């Protein structure tokens, strides 16, 4: 493999250098770093060193001027020291070459796929060796006809954990579509999001047609829940969150159906809520003001935590639960799926709450609650009207 010996750029002023003298004979074997020749400009004389081992083949004649970059000679590699090709890290699509050696996908295609949740490699395979374009990505359907899920985009809050650290303002805010927020829940959530710099509410969908066309806190109610897929295909949002909590079965069903279509869910955590180290959260969780999620708490998907909810350390919560204001779980409590609590429910340490249970307000739970239970306590009720005795 032959390496050219080129006239170096010695001085800014000059486009050429004078070759003063060669210091090695034609055909001589030289080692890397040895001085081959001296060149001169108006300001200085400079030595040119061999960049590699090899046999010197002189082309230029001393005493003449040569343009910068012109080959003065060559260093021919001996046959037994031929170098292996240097592998250079290729960018993005060039790493995976398409059939004819062209790149597998354009950078735009890769960015689009990552943003809308499609596996670019699957698209490439389906494209049979042609370079994947953005249009190909947008048109892609998996083998069962639905949008496929992708690897994590990386520059947003990852699905598995919540990042409670410095805010990266360089990323674009996550655009969140609120599902079922035509009434109070929408106003509440829009308010929460308005204080979060990395997320914002871009629209609301509600099943009540009377709300359509109105706005809540400046956020438009765009129509019914059926609009989700159309808006998703149009790239109008990054993720959704479910706000309705009355009917848990309906909530869970909505979640599962959208998740199956590849729609991403956001986690929304009020600015005043405290999320401690090691908390792990799934997707689609809504945590309201002054809630407290303690160290190493694990939470699944699609849960709602009203304000001042306290989940103490090492507790585990499943999915599709709703907790009323001031619900307090002590340490290492384990809650299943689809559990509902009222206001100010208190649960002692190590207690297990079985799935689909409902715990009425103000209960203090000291023992395990089996699945599908309803727990009530003595409610406050009117005893008798007050009587003024004397004064």
């Amino acid at each position, binding site marked *: 493999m032959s390496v050219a010996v080129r006239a170096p750029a010695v001085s*800014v*002023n000059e486009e050429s250098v004078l070759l003063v003298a060669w210091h090695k004979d034609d055909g001589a074997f030289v080692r890397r770093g040895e001085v081959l020749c001296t060149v001169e400009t108006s300001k200085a004389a400079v030595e040119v060193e061999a960049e590699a081992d090899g046999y010197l083949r002189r082309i230029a004649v001393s005493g003449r001027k040569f343009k910068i970059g012109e080959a003065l000679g060559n260093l021919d590699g001996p046959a037994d020291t031929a170098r292996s090709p240097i592998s250079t890290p290729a960018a993005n699509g060039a790493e995976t070459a398409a059939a004819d050696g062209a790149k597998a996908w*354009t950078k*735009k295609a890769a*960015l689009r796929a990552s*943003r809308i949740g499609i596996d670019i490699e699957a698209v490439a395979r389906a494209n049979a060796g042609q370079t994947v374009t*953005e249009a190909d990505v947008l048109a892609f359907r998996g083998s069962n006809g639905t949008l496929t899920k992708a690897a994590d985009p990386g*520059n947003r809050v990852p699905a598995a954990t919540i990042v409670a650290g410095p805010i990266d303002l*360089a990323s*674009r805010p996550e655009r969140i579509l609120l599902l079922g927020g035509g009434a109070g829940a929408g106003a509440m959530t829009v308010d929460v999001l308005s204080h979060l710099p990395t997320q914002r509410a871009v629209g609301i969908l509600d099943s009540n047609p009377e709300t359509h066309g109105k706005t809540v806190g400046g956020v438009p109610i765009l129509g019914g829940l059926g609009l989700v897929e159309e808006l998703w295909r149009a790239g109008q949002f990054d993720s959704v969150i479910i706000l309705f909590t009355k009917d848990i079965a309906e909530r869970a069903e909505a979640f599962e159906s959208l998740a199956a279509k590849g729609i991403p869910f956001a986690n929304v955590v009020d600015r005043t809520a405290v999320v401690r180290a090691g908390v792990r959260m799934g997707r689609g969780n809504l945590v309201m003001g002054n809630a407290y999620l303690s160290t190493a708490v694990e939470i699944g998907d699609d849960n709602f935590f009203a304000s001042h909810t306290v989940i103490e350390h090492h507790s585990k919560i499943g999915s599709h639960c709703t907790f009323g204001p001031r619900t307090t779980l002590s340490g290492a409590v384990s809650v299943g799926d689809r559990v509902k609590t009222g206001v100010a429910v208190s649960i002692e340490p190590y207690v297990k709450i079985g799935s689909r249970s409902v715990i009425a307000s103000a209960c203090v739970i000291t023992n395990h609650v089996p699945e599908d239970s309803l727990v009530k306590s003595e409610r406050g009720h009117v005893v008798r009207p007050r009587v003024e005795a004397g004064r």
Partner: protein
Amino acid sequence: MTTYLASIQTALRAAFAADPRVCLLGEDVLDPYGGAFKATKGLSTAFPDRVFTTPISEGAITGVATGLALDGFRPVVEIMFGDFLTLCADQIVNHLAKFTGMYGATLPVPVVIRTPMGGGRGYGATHSQSLEKMFLGVPGLTVVAPSHAHDAGALLKHAILGDDAPVLFIEHKLLYPVDLAEPGGSLRIELRREASGYPTAIVRNHATDAPDVTVVGYGGLSRLVVPLIEELAAEEITVDAVFPSSLTPLPVDTLVECTARSRRVLVVEEGTEGFNWGAEVAAVLNERLFGQLDAPIRRLASEDTVIPASADGERRMLVGREAVEDAILGLVA
């Protein structure tokens, strides 16, 4: 194909030929040397009574030029390296930029101070800087920095003959051997006239109304950005690269209109980060386009440190092609 340097040389000769009041002062400007970067090669031979080589005193050079301007001449000052502007800063800031404001419009000071700036040649910390930001915002001083997408020579000729206000004319030294850009391949170049008389060059790698990203830069960065966007066309990333030629006054309407098309903007410059041209551009874009952008205004500049003499070190801290590409892709993502 004309190089940036050749267009400067031609412009100087043309200005001298057009107006006997034009003269030039600088260090080492006489033939046969013709200046440190060869900008004045041939000039002193053609116009021996109007080209002056000077002692090494930037303050004296600029002061004498200012006096000549007050006396009715149209002097061109060559400061050998833009890093040396600090030595004539008082003459610029407190004298030639202020005289018209202090003494009236009947006392114009039509001085053009030409100087090369920029790094990438391993010349070290005091010969590689982009110090434009030190002279932005001086009332009365126009700062011009043509890219290779401009006709640099035409701009210089206008500054000398057509502009009665003092002009600081910045030439990026790595642009000198670069051929002035010509449209072709996937690139379209628009030269938009501005009220200042110094046009803005808009280079597009697409034919749509709404590119993915708008990149705003000036001067020497065009040599990085223009080839980069040509390659990005094949990656389906559409870019409008907007290069104003006057840094101040800023062509605000053009910048706003271009940014509004993509709603994602990157402002890039070779000077060090912080308190720079990009900060002003970003502030102005925010004022005019608040709430209408899809991403925060992104700025890119060289690292806030002394420029190393070592090639590796210099390459790491100066804004480079990879950093610009990453920033563009980050905006699209």
